[in-house]
Structure formats: C-alpha cells, structure tokens
C-alpha cells in the first residue's frame, strides 16, 4: 500500500482542524441576531436599513472578487446597473410582476454580462483591470443615456409600481416589507457566499490571489477559476441593483455612475477585505457615518468620510483592532489581578 493511502486522520487533529475552518463563530451569530432585531428596534429607520442591506449585498459581491480572488475593479456598478434596470423594466412593463422572480432574472442578466466581460478583465494585471472595468461601466452608462426611450435617460424609469413579494407581502409606506425582503435576500446570498469561500473552489481563489504562479503549478486553471468567481460576483451585484430598484421603485442613470463603483471600494476598505463580514460591517458603518455626518454638516460630509478613510488606511486595520481590544483586555487583567490578590489575602490570615 502506498504511503499516502494509510489511515492517519485519527492520529492528528486534522479532521477537527478542517472542520474548524468553516465552523460558525459566536460573533457571526451575534451579527445576524442583531440584524434580525433591527426589524423591531428601529421601526422608523427602515429606509436607511434597506439601503444598508442592498449596499451590503453589493459590497459582498466586490469582496468575492477582490478579497478572495484579488481582482480589482473600478466598474462594479456596471452589474449593479444592469440588475437595477432589468428589475425596473420588468416591473414597469409588467413582464414579470412578481419581485422575487424579477430579482432572479435581473441577477442572471448581470451574470451574463459578467461572464462575457470576464474575458476582457482576465487579460492583464491590476492597472489594466482597473481601466477595463472602469471603461465597461462608463460604456454602459452612455448606452443607457443614448437609449433614453428605453431607460428614461436622466429622469430614470418612472412610475414603477411594485407588486407584493411572492404575491403575499405588500410593499408598505414605511418600508418594513422592503427591509425584511432585502435582509432575507442578503442573508440567503451570504449563506451561499460563505459556503463558496469555504469550499475547495473558494480556497483555490485565495491561493490564486496569493500566488497565481504556484497555483498553476499545482494544477489550478487560474483563468477559468477567475472567470467563474467574476460571473458569480456579477450575479450578486445584479441582485443588489435589482433590490435597490425594487425597494425605491426607481432606477436612474446614476446606478452606473463612477461614484457608485468608487464608494463600493471605499465601503469594502472600511470593513476589510477577505472575510465576508467586511462588506457587511463596512456598509453599516458607511451608511451610518453618511447619515450622521450629513445631518451634522450637510455640505462637507464627504470631507469627513475622506478623512476617516485616510486615517483608517494610515493606522491600519490590524492596529485598530488591537487598540479596541486593548481596553477590555486591560480591565480583565486588572480584575484578574485583584481576584487573585483577594484569594491570596483570604489564604494568608
């Protein structure tokens, strides 16, 4: 029997360690519990919560290609926009009235675009990719502008009336249905993404980001894997765009805008790449900051966002994490020291 076929898993901690790689952590459960509780806790903030939910899905999409596969993009709004307009047109012309089905079709439309453009993006390195993705998004924006009889041009698609989700849940004035709908989609797509990144396929993406030369040397078809994840990410971005249209009953040219792609990168950098939650946390932080700063200083809120970003990048997220943990850990050491001193005190007399 060759040496690599002998039973070894019992003798090392291998099975447990492999299992640990994809185990649900406490923090994750806490995060989703809080997200669910937001429905009850903030009944007057459904609008911003809904925006956070679809933005989070959009950032999740960028994290899949940037954080896991290392593909930089400045034009991710292309897929968002295609999803947004597809959902809008389907509802406006009553082609597909049921939102969930329209959502899937919108995602698939973006996915097709993702697959086709992936071959352009695979050519060349980071700088080329930035330019190509940027170019594709600008191109689509101009196309949408040119065919304003279909897209409504600068006015956007108007007069969209959303039908109930699954024919059951009516979109209400306060946006409660919208938020729950977006949150459910976000959660399901997050579960899928989580599954993907912990699979052999997901691991191969991380390997490619780390070292494409070695990845090819152990038999990984690098470009094929990148095409696959780029296509999947386009689907995610398309869903996010469709959700934004469906929750606002509006789609306009700015779905394709450069600012949207750039903001997306910003949000992901704020939250951190390559662990899925970065996008979600980034979306929450970004939207809340935007909200707070815009009320505080309506004209200059972008200044403060910019400042925060610069400081964040200069300090580095790792150090920031250490600092936030320093306080609680310091208190814990002091308490531990007191406790042991007290125990020692009781023993001495």
């Amino acid at each position, binding site marked *: 029997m060759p040496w690599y076929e002998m039973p070894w898993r019992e003798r090392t901690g291998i099975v447990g360690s492999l299992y640990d790689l994809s185990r649900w952590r406490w923090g994750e459960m806490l995060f989703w519990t809080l997200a669910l509780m937001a429905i009850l806790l903030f009944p007057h903030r459904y609008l911003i919560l809904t925006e956070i939910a679809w933005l989070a899905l959009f950032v999740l999409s960028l994290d899949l290609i940037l954080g896991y596969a290392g593909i930089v993009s400045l034009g991710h709004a292309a897929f968002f926009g295609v999803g947004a307009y597809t959902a809008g047109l389907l509802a406006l012309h009553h082609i597909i009235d049921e939102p969930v089905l329209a959502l899937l079709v919108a995602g698939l439309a973006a996915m097709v675009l993702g697959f086709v453009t992936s071959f352009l993006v695979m050519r060349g390195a980071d700088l080329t990719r930035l330019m190509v993705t940027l170019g594709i998004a600008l191109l689509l924006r101009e196309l949408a502008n040119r065919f304003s009889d279909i897209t409504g041009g600068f006015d956007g698609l108007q007069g969209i009336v959303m039908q109930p989700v699954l024919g059951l849940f009516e979109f209400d004035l306060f946006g409660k249905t919208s938020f729950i709908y977006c949150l459910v989609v976000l959660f399901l797509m997050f579960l899928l993404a989580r599954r993907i990144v912990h699979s052999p396929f997901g691991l191969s993406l991380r390997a490619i980001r780390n070292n494409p*030369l070695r990845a090819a040397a152990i038999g990984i078809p690098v470009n094929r894997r990148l095409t696959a994840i780029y296509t999947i990410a386009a689907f995610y971005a398309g869903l996010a765009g469709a959700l934004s249209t469906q929750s606002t009953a509006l789609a306009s040219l700015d779905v394709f805008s450069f600012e949207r792609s750039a903001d997306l990168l910003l949000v992901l950098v704020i939250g951190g790449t390559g662990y899925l939650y970065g996008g979600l946390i980034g979306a929450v932080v970004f939207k809340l900051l935007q909200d707070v700063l815009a009320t505080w200083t309506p004209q200059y809120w972008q200044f403060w966002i910019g400042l925060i970003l610069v400081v964040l990048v200069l300090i580095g997220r790792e150090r920031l994490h250490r600092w936030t943990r320093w306080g609680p850990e310091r208190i814990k050491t002091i308490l531990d020291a007191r406790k042991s001193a007290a125990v020692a005190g009781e023993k001495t007399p």
Partner: protein
Amino acid sequence: MTLALETQGLVKTFGGLTATRDLSLKVERDARHALIGPNGAGKTTVINLLTGVLRPNAGRILLEGSDITALPAYRRALMGLSRTFQINQLFADLTPLETIALAVSEQRGEGMHWWSSLGRDATAADEIGLLLQRFHLTEVMNARTATLPYGKQRLLEIALAIAAKPRVLLLDEPAAGVPEAERQDILAAVASLPRDVSVLLIEHDMDLVFSFADRISVLVNGALFVEGSPSEVARDPRVKAVYLGEAADA
C-alpha cells in the same frame, strides 16, 4: 520502456542571450537524476521550460511519451509533472493545512466543487494528515504560512509538490538557504520520496547530489556538457575544469 521526461532540441533565447542551447535531455522512469552546472548555466530556465512557465523557441518536451510543449502549466501539473521552486512560492495567507488540503482536493479533481466543505472526505483527510505529518508540519498547520520559520516553509514547499501526486518531480535546489538544524529534515524528505516517482534534482550542494542521484547531467552555458553515472561525472576532467575554473574566477 518509455522515458519519464524527455526534451528534444530545446532552445530558449532572451533577446540576444541563449539560455538553453539545443538541449536533449532524457530522464528515465523511476530515475534519481540530477542536473548540475555552474551559476548561470541555465538550470532554472530548463525547469521553467519543462513546467510551462516559459515557452521554448524551438524543440519539443515529452512527458511519458506525450507531447506537452504547447500545454499550459496547469495541464502539465494535472498530467503528473510537479515541481518545487528555488525561491519559495507559497500561499502566504493560507495555513499549511489549507495549502495541503487545497493541493489534495485539486489532485482529486474537486477544485470546482463549490458546495462541499474542505476535506470532509475521510480519504482526503488521511492524505492531508499524512503529508503534514511526514513533513513535520502538524504542529504548525494552523499558523499563517508567512509567519513560519524558513525551514518549515521549505518543507511545505516540497510537501505541496508531493501533494499533487506527481509521476515526475522536479526539485529546484530543495536545500537552498536552509539552516543546518533543519537541513536533515529536508534531506530525509528528499531521500524518502516514493520510489515510483521519477525525480529530476537541480542542486548546487554536491554532497546532496552524489548521495541522491544515480545519473547526473552537467549543464554549461545552456547546453548539455557531460552526462553519466555519478562516478563517471566525478572522474571527468572537463567537469572538474568547469567547476575549478569557476572557483578560480571567483
């Protein structure tokens, strides 16, 4: 009997520089073959040509009789041609456990499986566990590769090549830069490679070459200079001249 690996009239030029000159090399099945030569002889270029990192200007490469000259690197790897790198080429953010699990799952053709979790299969887990154990990586298997000491990284470099279950293995200076304390681990790993794997070793360390190889090819200026058994090569005055000449120049 077919050869494990063969090159026919291989030529590679970089601008005006000819790095590989009409090289016809034969690696027998189950061989322990060493490729030696002074600095700049073009040894690593040969490995890069064989594995598809570089494309030759002329000539053919045959892996177990089939022409692989035009195939991309990953196809050659899947056909059983595996290599280590002179300078570690690892996945810095992955742990040794993830690295080996990745190579094993790719080798098992599960690389596109996006629904299953890693290494849930018992045979796969066995393979991963045994490889980590064999290369003394079990105690560091959950640490980021970038944080490992150099010797451990070197072992992982070799383990990763073995995990692909190669039929032909190209070792590019496996002991280069390894501190003396960890050197024995590397040498033992190289010595205990499965017998049914044909090995082409590139090395500067003559002790390792002569203890390992049963056939030696000497490369000078990109061309095959001398080939023979270790004792023949050791006695050959031209080889001595090349190495002594190099030493005298230096």
